[in-house]
């Protein structure tokens, strides 16, 4: 099993930390992982993306041009990465702010109302965990208990009290992913 994922959106949406939690969860699952950011001089409001690879084998290139799954959180990222999904692959996006919807017919397209659901939960910071939950529903590559372990390893100790809230967000994501 090798899952090559791009997560792309605005800086400040938690794109990089979602990737980190996914990678750490992969380690807890006993997989090989890589996490390759592309943020450079970008800041809040700029674009940010991260390539995460979770595999049974040693990861070769951490930098890719084609992905099994694209997790898309803004229009620019959709424009940039829709064409980079491998035929038969998955595209998951949050329709909030999307004006030009994806058009490909040879990939599986799903939506998750991450921003809306986070707001319903009363905490905009769990947005990225809702997205992670939606991704894991589509691509069940990591068990929930290992996601929880991944959180424990990637969050500083003072934030460990928030793990149940984050796992709740993962569940909300899993329950609300929809075929586009």
């Amino acid at each position, binding site marked *: 099993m090798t899952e090559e994922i791009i997560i792309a959106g605005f800086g400040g949406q938690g794109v990089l930390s979602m990737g*980190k939690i996914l990678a750490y969860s992969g*380690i807890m699952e006993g997989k090989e*992982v890589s996490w*390759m950011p592309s943020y450079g001089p970008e800041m809040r409001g700029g674009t940010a993306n991260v390539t995460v690879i979770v595999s049974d084998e040693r990861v*070769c*290139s*951490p930098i890719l041009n084609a992905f099994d799954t694209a997790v898309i959180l803004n229009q620019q990222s959709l424009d940039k990465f829709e064409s980079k999904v491998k035929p038969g692959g998955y595209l998951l996006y949050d329709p909030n702010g999307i004006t030009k919807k994806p058009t490909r017919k040879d990939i599986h397209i799903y939506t998750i109302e991450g921003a809306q659901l986070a707001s319903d939960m009363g905490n905009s910071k769990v947005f990225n965990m809702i997205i992670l939950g939606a991704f894991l529903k589509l691509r069940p590559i990591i068990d929930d208990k290992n996601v929880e372990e991944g959180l424990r390893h*990637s969050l500083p100790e003072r934030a460990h009290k928030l793990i149940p809230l984050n796992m709740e967000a993962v569940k909300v994501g899993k329950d609300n992913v929809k075929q586009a």
Partner: protein
Amino acid sequence: MGELKLMKGNEALAEAAIRYGADAYFGYPITPQSEVIEYLSEQNPYERTGMVVLQAESELAAINMVYGAGASGKRVMTSSSSPGVCLKQEGLAYIAGAEIPCVFADVVRGGPGLGTIQPSQADYFQNTKGGGNGDYRNIVLAPASVQEMCDFVALGFELAFKYRMAACILSDGAIGQMMEKVVLPDQKPRMTDEEIKAKYPWAINGRKNGTQHRIITSLDLDSAKMEEHNIHLQKKYKEVEEKEVRYEMIDCDDAEYVFVAYGSSARIAQKSVQLGRAAGMKVGLLRPITLWPYPTKAIDALIKKGVKGFLSVELSCGQMIEDVRLACNGRVKAEHFGRVGGIIHTPEEVLEAMKKQIIGE
């Protein structure tokens, strides 16, 4: 087995310095390797092992602190990125002349000049051909994973002390910034002053009880002595060339065409090999681990086994290709491919270049 963690390459380098018993790190922050000094500052190494971490006022100060502390037989390290490493070249030439062991890391960004903060491999010439003055060499290790960013700290110190010279860990912004699984070693104790005195008779650490005075310098105005010193250095470099070449071959057994790539480009080219093999092409990868000394004999052996061409893949306009061509010596085709300016080539582009430039459609 040691501790398993998900870390950035830069963080793994810093943690390895603490765990492998480094005595001191002197540095000055610069993107894309600022995590090294950030991480060290956060970790309180002085409390963990007694290791000194100091942010110097400049790169020049940092490298000269390395010179001073290294002369006393301590395990000393510094790191920087491309323009910062330029500033350290004067100190590195002095370190070579004075035969001071030390480890320095260059987490390369695009150039020339201030260039860009994105990854690049355009410091190959600077580090393998000697960026400072005089006839000297530095051992150059090229990590291709976060694990190797950790492991090469130990290897760098081992070689630096074995040959009394600087060992460079030549990384790049991609390896420095990416996160991977890393198995960290158990904490090794720092050497005591008594151990250093017993092990390194050249080190200057206080003249007591009638011992001979020791001199550490790169200066000698007596030409005959200076020539003798240079001959001694060359003899040492020759020994390093004979004994310390390291490389990895991937799918080269039956390969007709071989990518030569190090660091992040080696990781990308490894994917190109997979893509090529899936399409029925007999391609392989030679990954130099030491860039100096260069695995010239490995290329020679591949040619003798029937390899018909090499593609040197680097994030530069073509630097390592010169060493590949020297090894080929005109016998087979050797060309360069690489994106620059902070753009990273994709596995597909690299494979396409092999088809176009070497195999021919």
